[in-house]
Structures are given as C-alpha cells and as structure tokens.
C-alpha cells in the first residue's frame, strides 16, 4: 500500500513534468479529434505517428500514444450520440440510446454524461491498474478456451433479456447475428465459409460496417420514409447540462460499467465491444422499466461509456505486465516499446518504474484534461443537432462511407454497409431490434472458436467446462439465470419472468 503510494508519487513527478504533460495533452487532444472524425481511428493514427515516436524518450511516447487511445474513446461517443455513427467500435452501443436522447433535444446531457462517466471510469480503472495491475494480469492468464466459452454463454443468456417485447423475435435476431458471424475463414479448420469466392469476405464482415449500416443508415432511411416530419431533431436544444436527476440516474450505471469494463479490458481474448455491450445489458436487466432502453435511457449512455473507457485503460495491464496485447492498438504500443528496447513483462514495474508509474499517473492527468476539453464543447456539439435534416443526412452518409472505405481501403465494405442499411430498414419495419443481432454477431464467433479449441485441447471431452472452477462459476450463473427466466415463463407468461429474473 505504502509502496504503491510512493510509486504513484514517482509517477506523478514523471507525468507532470512539463514535457510529459505537453505530450499527454497532445495525445488526448489528437485522440478526441480523431475520435470525432469518422474514418480515422486510433489504430491508423498511432501507426502513422509511430515512426515519430522513435525520436522521443519511451515514457513520453507511451504517454502520448496512450492519450490518443483513450482520448479516442471520449471522442467516439460524440458522433455516436449526435449522428448515430459510432466513431469507434466501442461506442456503437452508446449510439443506441445516446442518439435517441439527441433526437429528443437532450444531446447536451447525453454528451456530458458520456464525458463524466468516461472520466469516473478512467480514474477508477487507473486505481485498479495501480493497485492490482500484476494481480489482474495473472488472473487474466487463468482464462483459457473453456473459461472464455463459458463467459460467452453467460453473455448470450444475459442477452435474452435485451429484448424489448417479443422474446422470439429477439432470439431470432441473435441467430441472424450468429449467422453473420459465421462468414469468413474458420479459425479452427481454415475452411472459408459463406464467402462465395469473394476474397474480401474471407476475413468476415467488419463490426463497424454492420453497426453503421444497421444503426446509422437504416435510421436515415426510416426518417426519409416519413415525409412531412420535422426538419431538425428537436426545435430547441432543451438543457445543455445534465440535471441532478440525470446525474443520479447515471451514477450507479457508470460505476457498474467501470467494474465490467475494468475486468473485461484485462482479458486479452475479449474484443473491445464486449465490455460496453455487457454493461448495457446489465443496466437493462437491472432497470425497473427496461422498455425505456432504446428510447433515450440515460443509463444506456453512462454504462457503456464508462465500460469502454475503463477497458481502454486496463488493456494496458496484459500489454505491460505480460507482453500480451489485447487489441491491435495495444500490439502497436507493444511494438513501440520493444523497438525502444523495453521488454514488457512481469518485471517492467520494477525494472522501469518511471515508465509504468509515469503512464499510470498520466492516465489521471489525461482524464482530467479530457474532461476539461470535452465539457465546454458539449454546447457547441449539441447545437449541431439543429442542422436541418437535408444537410445532416447526406453528411452522415458521406462520413459513414468514408469511414467504412478507409477501414481497409475496400469498396466491398461500403457495399456491405449499404446492404446492412437495407436489412436494418427491413428489420425496423418488422419491429425487430438490431441490438440482439449485433450481440450474436460479436459473441458468436468467439463462442464457437473457444468451444472448438477447448474440445480440441481436451481430446473432445466436455468435462473441461465443469472441471475448471472459473468456467463452472460462469456456467452456474447462466443456468440460474436461464432457469429463473424460463421456468416461470412456462407457467405465468413472460411479463412476470422479467421481474423474477431481476431478483435472481
């Protein structure tokens, strides 16, 4: 304890030096900017800046690169809320309720709550990294194929409650999502599936492509279908800052999102979007009135934003303490460190304390800077929603197209996004929610891959799922949840089931 505090003091002395403070500011500023701009993500930015960082000292370059990464998480929510276009993969969930809030004239509170939740999550997850970094790193190593599989099962069971209304429809949507997830080369056998001989499909369909199509494009088409509707989201932007009630409603969701995000961020086998999705699902499950979700529930902004920022920070745990990058961005950071002659691993905290603790302290500095940068901008952004539809809609489509094209410099992604847009419109007409589809799409491939790997590594025996304690706990929770939902629903119908599920 005392150790950590003295280390943090060292860290702050590093992070607050004029030079590193400047690099931290530069990093978070760039991050916010690219997060807002569709089509430029942290990955591309860091890849382009990497050669420049070789001239810097390792601590400064790490502080700046990290700032870009978590700064982009802040900025990514801005476009998600304002134009329903997730700037970053992890803010796709924020778009669901954030955009609805913007349409109701509450873009200001949505943006402010997103920034505040990210800030709270940033500070708390920094404490997690500081006090439990190596411990969490070791815990992450315990996760093998069996654990990941059972975790995904739990996620899918939770997703059953993501449904508004019709359970059958939402299960069907999860299945459609699972099927989308099948497209591409099978990891285990190397066989191409549903790629129809198209080389671009061998890698599967990109998450952003599907999300932008289903949410942003479909939304626009739907709006165009209504001919004599209002020209702007809302005649007036009501309040710029969240009310006391908004803050109160967001506090617990943000804290729960932080916990989920911090845990998931430390697991190298989990993709960025899982943390924010899980946080969203959890809030929906806990809410007194789940039907508000999808129609501008502020908890639906607070929880996923907290989760994605917390995960962005705890991603550094496996990267630094184990040398295992959880995401492509982390792989770049790892590469940058290796080229500087630093070997990430369990010893990095003792061999290079100024690096590890300087980075941890810079998280705090960076998050404060981001809050200061973002809050005053809320008013400016919120006014953007006053732009008439005839300007806004073409702009969104243009940005979405540029964004999708620039992911791989591939025209195929633009076609797929358009296709997903048409599909999203059809689903809307059929009153089917796209959120469960995205969930099945994200979890399905991970579920399959880990199931098959677990079996492959255990000579085809299913016993591994119950013989490993962490896996057993996840399966147990899934079973209880499922029982709590299914059993009463057989007797009393689904209305009561949701309530019982809350208790269980």
């Amino acid at each position, binding site marked *: 304890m005392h150790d950590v505090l003295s280390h943090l003091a060292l860290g702050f002395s590093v992070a607050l030096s004029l030079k590193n403070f400047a690099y931290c500011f530069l990093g978070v500023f760039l991050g916010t900017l690219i997060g807002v701009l569709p089509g430029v993500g942290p990955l591309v930015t860091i890849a382009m800046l990497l050669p420049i960082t070789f001239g810097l000292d390792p601590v400064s370059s790490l502080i700046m690169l990290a700032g870009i990464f978590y700064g982009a998480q802040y900025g990514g929510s801005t476009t998600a809320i304002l134009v329903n276009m997730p700037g970053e993969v992890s803010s796709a969930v924020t778009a669901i309720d954030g955009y609805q809030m913007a349409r109701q004239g509450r873009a200001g509170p949505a943006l402010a709550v997103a920034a505040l939740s990210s800030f709270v999550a940033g500070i708390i997850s920094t404490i997690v990294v500081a006090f439990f970094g190596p411990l969490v790193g070791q815990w992450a190593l315990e996760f093998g194929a069996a654990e990941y599989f059972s975790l995904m099962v739990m996620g899918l069971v939770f997703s059953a409650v993501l449904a508004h209304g019709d359970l059958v429809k939402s299960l069907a949507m999860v299945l459609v999502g699972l099927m989308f997830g099948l497209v591409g080369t099978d990891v285990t056998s190397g066989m191409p599936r549903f790629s129809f001989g198209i080389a671009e499909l061998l890698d599967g369909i990109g998450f952003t492509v599907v999300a932008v199509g289903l949410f942003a494009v479909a939304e626009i088409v739907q709006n165009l279908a209504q001919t004599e509707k209002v020209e702007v989201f809302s005649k007036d932007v009501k309040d710029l800052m969240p009310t006391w009630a908004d803050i109160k409603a967001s506090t617990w969701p943000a804290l729960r999102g932080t916990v989920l995000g911090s845990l998931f961020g430390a697991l190298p086998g989990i993709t960025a979007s899982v943390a924010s999705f899980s946080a969203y699902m959890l809030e929906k499950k806990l809410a007194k009135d789940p039907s508000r979700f999808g129609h501008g529930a502020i908890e639906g902004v607070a929880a996923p934003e907290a989760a994605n920022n917390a995960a962005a920070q705890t991603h550094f745990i496996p990267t630094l303490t184990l040398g295992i990058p959880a995401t492509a961005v982390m792989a770049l950071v790892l590469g940058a460190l290796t080229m500087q002659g630093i070997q990430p691993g369990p010893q990095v905290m003792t061999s290079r304390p100024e690096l590890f603790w300087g980075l941890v302290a810079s998280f705090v500095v960076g998050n404060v800077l981001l809050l200061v940068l973002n809050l005053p901008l809320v008013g400016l952004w919120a006014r953007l929603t006053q732009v008439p539809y005839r300007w806004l809609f073409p702009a969104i489509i243009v940005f979405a197209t540029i964004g999708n094209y620039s992911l791989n410099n591939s025209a195929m992604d633009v076609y797929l996004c358009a296709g997903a847009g048409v599909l999203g419109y059809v689903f809307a007409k059929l009153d089917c929610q796209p959120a469960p589809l995205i969930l099945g799409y994200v979890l399905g491939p991970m579920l399959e891959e880990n199931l098959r790997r677990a079996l*492959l590594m255990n000579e085809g025996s299913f016993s591994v799922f119950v013989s490993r304690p962490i896996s057993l706990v996840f399966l147990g929770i899934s079973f209880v949840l499922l029982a709590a939902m299914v059993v009463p629903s057989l007797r009393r119908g689904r209305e009561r089931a949701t309530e019982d599920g809350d208790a269980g």
Partner: protein
Amino acid sequence: MNRRVTLAAVAATLALATVPGLAQAQADYPDKPIRFIVPFPPGGGTDVLSRIVTDKLNSTLGWKVVVENKAGAGGTVGLDAAAKAKPDGYTLVMAQTSNLSIAPSVMSALPYDPVKNFTPIRLVASIPTVIVVSANSPFKTLADLVAAAKANPGKLLFASPGNATVAHLTGTYFQKVAGIKYTHVPYKGTAQALPDVISGRASFFMASIESALAPVKSGQLRALAVTSLKRSPHWPDVPTVAESGYPGFEAITWFGVAAPAGTPEAIVARLDKEIAKVLDAPEVEARLNGKVDVGPAAFAALIKSDAEKWAVVVKENGIKK
C-alpha cells in the same frame, strides 16, 4: 523528344544525384508519388516493416512513397491489387512468404499468379520461426520435446498463430522430419495464443521471432530452437533446429518488395539499388533483425523454392486456408 534536352536532363540528373548511366525513363523516375501497397492493416508487423523502408526512402531521396494499407484474405487482396496495377514503377507491394509461396497451394481460387504477375525487387527481412514453451514446462531442449512427442503420439498440443501460417507449416513439416505426431491448435494470432502458451495449457508454440521476443526476454517463455540455418542475432544462445539433429531444416518468413510483372528493368534496378542502400543504413539494420542481401534474381529463386517446399507439406497434410 529533343535529343539535346534529353541529354541535358540526363546530365543534370547525373550531376545532382550522382546516378551513373541511366536510361531516360529512369532519369525521370520517380516524377510522381509511388503507391506502396501494404497488404495488412496499419500497425501489424508488415506495416511497421514497410513504413521503416518507405520513411527512409522518402527522407534520404526526397521521394514520395505513400503507404496504402489494403488488407484482406491474408494479404491476397493487396497482392491482387498490385498484380493488376500498371507496371510503370509507381505501384509497389510488400509481399511475404504466405502471399507468394504458400497461398498458391492452400487457396482454391487465388486471383493472381505469384510467378507470372510479379517482378521481385529485393528482400527486406528474413525472420526465423521460434519454438517456445512455458517457463514452467518440463522441456528444456528440443530433444526433450521430441522424446515426449514420441512417447505420447498426438498428445502434445502445438499452438500456432493460425492455419496455413509459416509457423503452422513449419510445425507440420517438423512432425515429418522428426518422425513424431502432435495435435495442432490454431489461434487467431500470436496475442491470442500467448496466454495458453505462458500458462502451459498448450505444450509448445511456434511463431515469428518478433512476436515471442517480449515474453521470452521477460522470462515467461523459454525458447528451445530457431528455424533459420544460422542462430538469430537476438538470441545467440538459442540453438537452431538444424544443429539440434535435423541438418538442413530451415523455415523462414521473408518480406520483400515486389512490383507488377512488366515493370521496366531500369526502374527495377534503380529500386533494387535504393532499397539495398536503405537496408544498409545502420539505424534500419538495427530494427530489421539482421541484414539480408537478396536481389531480384535470388528473390525470384527463393519464391520458387519455398513454394515447392510448402506445396509438399500442404498436400501431404490436407491444409486449407
């Protein structure tokens, strides 16, 4: 064109750039930005390697070589774009073993012909695969691993960064060479495999030396052998597979710059020379894990010999991508 003007231009170029006796096409080259296709996403190993080379070309020669990431289908989408580009020297591509020597035998409908559609220019890096085990593993040497595999056929778990990767083919090839059998467990990449390897859930792992560098140096993994003919400058104490009782065993991942087939010879020669100079620069050499000196002809021969070697492994084991 006016002959005198041409001569003057050549003379001026000679004086300015001290480039000896060149044809006119080359004297002007490059007079516009060069598109450098990287067939993988930004930030991956191929991308970083490419940017080291292009940055150096731009900073020393004042050229405008622009990296264009065109990822997809294990690099074949980017290679295909290069194969179909105009062969005027303004499109280059960073090709590697899997695109030119493995793809033809594992992909059912490869849109390009690795030999007919490309002009190899120069090899940039040659990276051995490394065989690693958990620090807690009972295997201290490659011989220990082979003995355990012989005693329990099919029981050892061989983790690889993916199907039809060089590491996977190397591991499969080694089964035949050593007369052993183990179970292949493919992952989506090195990062996904490392937790299982470090914790010992997988018996051993093969991957490119770069990706295993950090956990080996930090003591979480132990390197048993490298698959190059000579020891790696990174780890002079790690033996090669060849010297561990399997003479001649070699499996490397190489990266090299290529252009579409039909690119003028003079331009190929110029690029070859300039890239060779870049590779000689000490700061570049330091980052590239040892220097390679393989020009157009030797590069073409390497593509061919590796393609033949891997085709046999793929065919005998029914490997798919």
